[in-house]
């Protein structure tokens, strides 16, 4: 009886063993051996999500494996990034999208499990400046109109943005300080909602992503852009805040890219960085990104690291003396 049973059981047992051995063999020989995952801490359908899906389309050519996008939204990205920093596998197969300045600002102002030091940059794909928008039928036609009104009515100008301590919030803070005005910032749960507030007249103005504003440009007036230079490709006619005399730099520009948890072997990080840079420079990616008004800015691991360090410093200065409550 036992003999007969073991006759059936042996092949059954052999299957998982063979699989396990096979798996061990391939890990060393060529990696990655199965799809990578990339966690995006925002809802499916948002700008970060769909850009991540676009830029990873060529991954099968570059890495030999697809990249699966996983959405884990909540609290402006805190939920996803906390889980990522605390629990991601350290073999490089679990990656995440980052948004700078968001995650750095949150790590300064809130108690988070992540900061720029326990995460490893891989590559940067996009830079989406914040633009100041009002609805089509707004009383403001220029940036000066808005500033003047805000001076006369302190705290009466509502400005929507994609959440607390994201690029839009930082741009609002910077404009307040540079122009000496008091605005009322309304955080919403994402760029789409912030845009709805402006279009529906729930808020008088808003800071939003250039890409989203560009696509909705016939329903909006785009007053200014919070960057060092004008965006020549998509919005050549929109002035920067700086050239209108408000000292606002590019701290609020929303950089998007890929990162890994700390502890991934350096050679894998290098390999991933190279592969992702190639992906971001792929023609299919360029075409689809530019169709949606999403500016590309490809940076490798070193450049991204430098960006993070720079942003950390500027944000620490900006938030000095501010309460997170």
């Amino acid at each position, binding site marked *: 009886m036992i003999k007969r049973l073991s006759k059936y059981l042996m092949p059954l047992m052999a299957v998982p063993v063979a699989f396990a051995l096979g798996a061990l063999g391939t890990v060393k020989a060529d990696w990655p051996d199965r*799809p990578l995952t990339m966690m995006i801490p925002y809802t499916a359908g948002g700008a970060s999500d769909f850009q991540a899906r676009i830029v990873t389309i060529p991954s099968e050519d570059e890495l030999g494996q697809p990249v699966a996008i996983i959405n884990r939204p909540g609290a402006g990205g805190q939920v996803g990034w906390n889980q990522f920093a605390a629990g991601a596998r350290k073999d490089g197969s679990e990656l995440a999208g980052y948004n700078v300045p968001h995650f750095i600002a949150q790590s300064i102002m809130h108690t988070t499990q992540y900061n720029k030091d326990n995460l490893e940059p891989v590559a940067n794909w996009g830079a989406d400046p914040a633009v100041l928008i009002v609805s089509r039928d707004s009383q403001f036609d220029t940036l000066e109109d808005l500033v003047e009104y805000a001076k006369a009515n302190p705290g009466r100008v509502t400005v929507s943005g994609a959440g607390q301590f994201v690029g839009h919030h930082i741009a609002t803070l910077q404009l307040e300080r540079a122009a000496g005005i008091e605005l009322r910032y309304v955080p919403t749960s994402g760029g789409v909602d912030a845009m709805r507030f402006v279009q529906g007249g729930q808020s008088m103005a808003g800071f939003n992503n250039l890409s989203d504003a560009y696509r909705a440009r016939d329903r909006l007036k785009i007053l200014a852009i919070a960057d060092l230079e004008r965006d020549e490709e998509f919005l050549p006619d929109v002035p920067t805040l700086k050239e209108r005399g408000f000292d606002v730099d590019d701290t609020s520009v929303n950089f998007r890219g890929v990162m890994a948890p700390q502890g991934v072997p350096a050679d894998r990080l290098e390999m991933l960085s190279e592969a992702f840079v190639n992906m971001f420079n792929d023609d299919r990616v360029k075409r689809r990104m530019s169709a949606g008004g999403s500016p590309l800015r490809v940076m490798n691991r070193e450049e991204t690291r430098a960006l993070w360090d720079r942003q950390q410093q500027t944000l620490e200065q900006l938030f000095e003396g501010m309460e997170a409550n």
Partner: protein
Amino acid sequence: MTIWKQRIIAIASILVAAGLVVWSSPEARPGYEFPRMVAWTMLVLSAVLALMAFKPGKVVIPADIESVPMRIIWPMLVILAGMAYLAPRLGFLSTSFLVFVATALVFSPDRLGVRRIALVVAIAACFTVSLYLLFVLLLGVQLPRALLF
């Protein structure tokens, strides 16, 4: 008898709601206003429930309480807990196979024989394979890596 159970439920509900009120009222920290409102609402509702249950005189309360057949369902609770423990360690698919087999065998109304067990194992195998086809191959879900699959 049921009236006493209703009264116990009302008291328990008040205690839970009171606990939530306390939990939602940390000192001098913003961000708790709405949870506090909700907890107070629940407390008031529970108080009304208690009032109804303790009201003297003829009590009009629906008979909506059944006893819990712990004797019967405990193996299923064990299986569910085991599933939660094993799934990330052993692997989702192999755990599913085991859970299916265990549930079908433990709660089988018929007597267990070799044929019955073989049938259950075969059905469980088919079920697991279709789970794999549907979730992993068709929908591309990335199951966590574990000991077996």
